[in-house]
């Protein structure tokens, strides 16, 4: 193993690092929109609104994200006649829809956990359904969602490595490319390097989400729990299956 070679090739990782961040942020944004749309729909009283959302959620949670990625990249252009100009778009859409479906359960759960009295009070105040959501329910549900959403954001970062399989040059693809030179004799330290990079990115997401959670809780007058100093996605469990 030649560590000089790894250090020398560090600049080549700059652009792929940006690609990984870009895929993660873009699909997280899509996932958040999808999660709120589906989460609100599955919380609805009306069967006609709830059913299509439920079907969509079960469909995406039921099958594998890897298969969905391949399907969006290679099968959808044929079956549905929709073709993206760049593979990265297919990747972002596949990841965004899949994680959006998972996170919609987090949104639904957090809305359901808001005390019933809050609904009743806002009814008594004659709020419109929209006002009730925006002013009463969501401000209380939002801080409850953040830890789970954080866990899913880290899982999304990890899943973003999969886009290397549909020929997007992210960190994982670059490690394969650079490390694969000379018949791949120096491959291992390159993979080790990007494992560390991914870990640092995960830690950054976690730190950012902790700060966001404290802020959101202060906004509704709750003191955030003391820092546990532990990167744990166990809270993702709620929406996992």
């Amino acid at each position, binding site marked *: 193993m030649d560590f000089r070679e790894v250090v020398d090739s560090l600049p080549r990782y700059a652009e792929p690092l940006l690609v990984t961040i870009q895929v993660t942020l873009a699909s997280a944004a899509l996932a958040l929109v999808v999660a709120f749309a589906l989460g609100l729909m599955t919380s609805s009283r009306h069967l006609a609104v709830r059913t299509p959302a439920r079907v969509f959620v*079960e*469909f995406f*949670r*039921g*099958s*594998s*994200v*890897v*298969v*969905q990625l*391949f*399907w969006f990249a*290679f*099968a959808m*252009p*044929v*079956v549905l006649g929709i073709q993206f100009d760049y593979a990265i778009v297919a990747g972002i859409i596949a990841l965004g829809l899949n994680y959006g479906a998972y996170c919609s359960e987090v949104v639904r759960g957090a809305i359901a956990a808001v005390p019933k009295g809050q609904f009743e009070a806002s009814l008594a105040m004659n709020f419109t359904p929209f006002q009730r959501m925006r002013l009463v329910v969501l401000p209380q549900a939002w801080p409850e969602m953040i830890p789970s959403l954080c866990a899913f954001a*880290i899982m999304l*970062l*990890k*899943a*973003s*490595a*999969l886009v*290397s*399989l549909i020929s997007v040059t992210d960190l*994982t693809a670059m*490690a*394969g490319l650079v490390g694969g030179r000379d018949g*791949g*004799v120096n*491959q*291992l330290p390159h*993979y*080790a390097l*990007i*494992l560390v990079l*991914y*870990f640092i990115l*995960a*830690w950054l997401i976690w730190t950012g989400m902790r700060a966001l959670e404290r802020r959101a809780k202060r906004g509704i007058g709750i003191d955030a729990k003391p820092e546990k100093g*532990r*990167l*744990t*996605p*166990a809270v993702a*469990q709620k929406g*996992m*299956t």
Partner: protein
Amino acid sequence: MNEWNNDTVVEVFPAMWEGFIVVLQVTLVAGLIAVLLGLLVAIAERIGPPWVRRVVSGVFQFIRNTPLLVQVLFVWTATSLYINPEWSAFAVGSAVLGVHYASYTSESYRAGIEAIPVGQWEAATALSLPTHRVWGAIVLPQLLRRSSAAVANWIIAMFKEVPTLFVIGVLEMIAQAQKYQGQHYDGAVEGYTIAGILFLAASYPVAVAARRLENRLAKSHY
């Protein structure tokens, strides 16, 4: 680009079914590792000497927060270059997948241990039960009951991540579709679609059952 073809669906199906069986086999092996190793990790993090706790929790935190795909590639490169090139992709892949998910199940077990009322520990101490009795007769029975639904959920999630292993040549469904494509110049589209449907058909009933189990345990035990 190839067209969708119903005849191809029939032709590619046996290969996809073979891939599906491989997925189930990997799930079984990796699932066993995840269930047992996760429990060991959770126990080690609870009663191990301080340095063991620190090392184990550090290592598993790292595993939990880095991509499975890169871990698979890393370990596969390490075994084939430096350890033993004879080891099969199936064995190495299952092991990595199992350890990766052990990092998740250990968190569920840990939560289960923490949820056991303090009085149980105090009572065990008051009776001066030896450690193996405390765990065997008091903690484990409650722990397994509390965490079984959570662990089952992780195993279902793991089942859906098996296709990642195709990068090192485990012949699961994506690899089968690509192999078929390589031989017949078509069939990948149908193959990926079948793969999606098989996953859906297999994981949905299990997920529903796991949810039932979760609800039942939640009602019965607290």
